[in-house]
């Protein structure tokens, strides 16, 4: 924790976990989708479901999906704004197995019909963790510039990915690898120390065996 985890963030109340963290989950999911969703199905689990309404958890997640940060004064009006902007929102309570008490599962559809599901938890103090993307396990906070690469599960692919990063002098903070089954699809999550320019991102996306390369930089507007 640094001193700005103690002092701050500036946020719309009432709860850093149920409001600020929820807004951050929405904003992270929007960035992962790459555009404003036209349809959003939001499943709230645990304490998010139990006390979410009183904490504005629903509005906060939708605000994030609209591109608002946790300190946006328009956050309480997010449901109305979503309606005006033609975002079809459904919110329901549900049970998720072995999930952190403050977890939401967001199923989003963009204007081109592409869907993305993101499961994320609010850990307290406004900090969050993404648990899964499209049902595949992952674990990252969004506090670092992050690459989420969907690739074939075959030998050598990780070294090709890290070679591209090395060639562009990008320092890796953490690496995680997940797969659904042997020889199937894998998710490689790489957190970098500094923002990653367009070129290495394009090179990674063009690598043989890489299905999709998503880049998340929460500092980038």
């Amino acid at each position, binding site marked *: 924790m*640094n001193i700005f985890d103690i002092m701050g963030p*500036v946020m719309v109340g*009432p709860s850093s*976990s*149920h409001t600020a963290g929820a807004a951050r989950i929405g904003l992270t999911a929007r960035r992962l989708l790459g555009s404003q969703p036209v349809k959003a199905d939001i499943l709230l689990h645990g304490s998010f479901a139990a006390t979410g309404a*009183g904490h504005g958890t629903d509005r906060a997640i939708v605000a994030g999906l609209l591109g608002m940060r946790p300190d946006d*004064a328009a956050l309480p009006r997010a449901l109305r704004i979503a309606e005006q902007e033609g975002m079809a929102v459904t919110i329901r309570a549900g049970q998720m197995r072995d999930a952190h008490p403050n977890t939401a599962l967001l199923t989003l559809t963009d204007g081109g019909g592409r869907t993305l599901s993101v499961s994320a938890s609010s850990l307290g103090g406004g900090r969050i963790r993404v648990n899964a993307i499209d049902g595949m396990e992952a674990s990252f906070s969004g506090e670092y510039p992050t690459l989420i690469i969907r690739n074939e599960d075959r030998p050598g692919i990780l070294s090709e990915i890290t070679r591209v990063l090395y060639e562009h002098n990008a320092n890796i903070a953490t690496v995680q690898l997940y797969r659904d089954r042997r020889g199937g699809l894998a998710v490689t999550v790489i957190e970098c120390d500094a923002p990653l320019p367009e070129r290495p991102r394009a090179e990674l996306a063009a690598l043989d065996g890489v299905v999709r390369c998503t880049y998340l930089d929460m500092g980038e507007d």
Partner: protein
Amino acid sequence: MSFVSVSALLAAAEREPLWQAVLDDDCRDRGVERSESLERMEALWRAMVRSAKEYDAARRSASGLSGGQGAKMAAAQSIGGPFLRDVIATALMVGEQNACMGRIVAAPTAGASGVMPAVLLPLRERDGLADETMVQCLYVAAGFGQIIAARASISGAEGGCQAEIGAASAMAAAALVHARGGTPQAMAAACAMALQNVMGLVCDPVAGLVEEPCVKRNVMGAVNALACADMALAGVASAIGCDEVIDAAAAVGRLMPASLRETGEGGLAATATARRIAESLGGERPGPAEG
């Protein structure tokens, strides 16, 4: 973060002002320039001022439990005079602002966001202190808060209300000593006394919401901070050192049953009235809700 103890922070404060030791440590920790750290803290100070200024007496929380009380206090008289009235009113206003989905600065949490502005804003107003001094106060508060977070907790779900309002009160007490030109030792004493005064305070939000008694506990945190800063400045010492007080609070937090740690099941939340309120809110069932 290099300061895991108040004694280490005090040692660093022998070479430079304590607030500056916290600033320099932040620069090393995050690899940023002084100007970048200062700008960020200045923005937090401006947001803190705004959190009180944006208060709308007509606004009510979604549950209907919060709103309008700060305005009542601001229009009333305090036994302790106009300064104390302003402290109490500001704590209520920012606490309500938070409950009503207004913008606040979590310090260290949203539920305790009223404590720091409640003591700093009226003091600046009355004594005409420079914004620069107030930003220094925030560094002092953050420095002590960081040690409380590292050695104990700043989460009600982990340590009860002593971890939220208690931490905020201890941070505010140290900051007030800085504002009044006190020594680092007096800051540590104020922090220690503020935390020991609320040792064991439980987190028992009615219906699991950050409203009742949370808003009013901000008042207690602010007034406690004032009293402890005054004592420390007068030379009143804490028999138990600050690090030991923090460790004791951590131990008490671990001993606390889950029902008294933000689950909305014990304390005030377990009263018949609180249960009726929870029921009347329909979908709102008691459950953990970190401030």
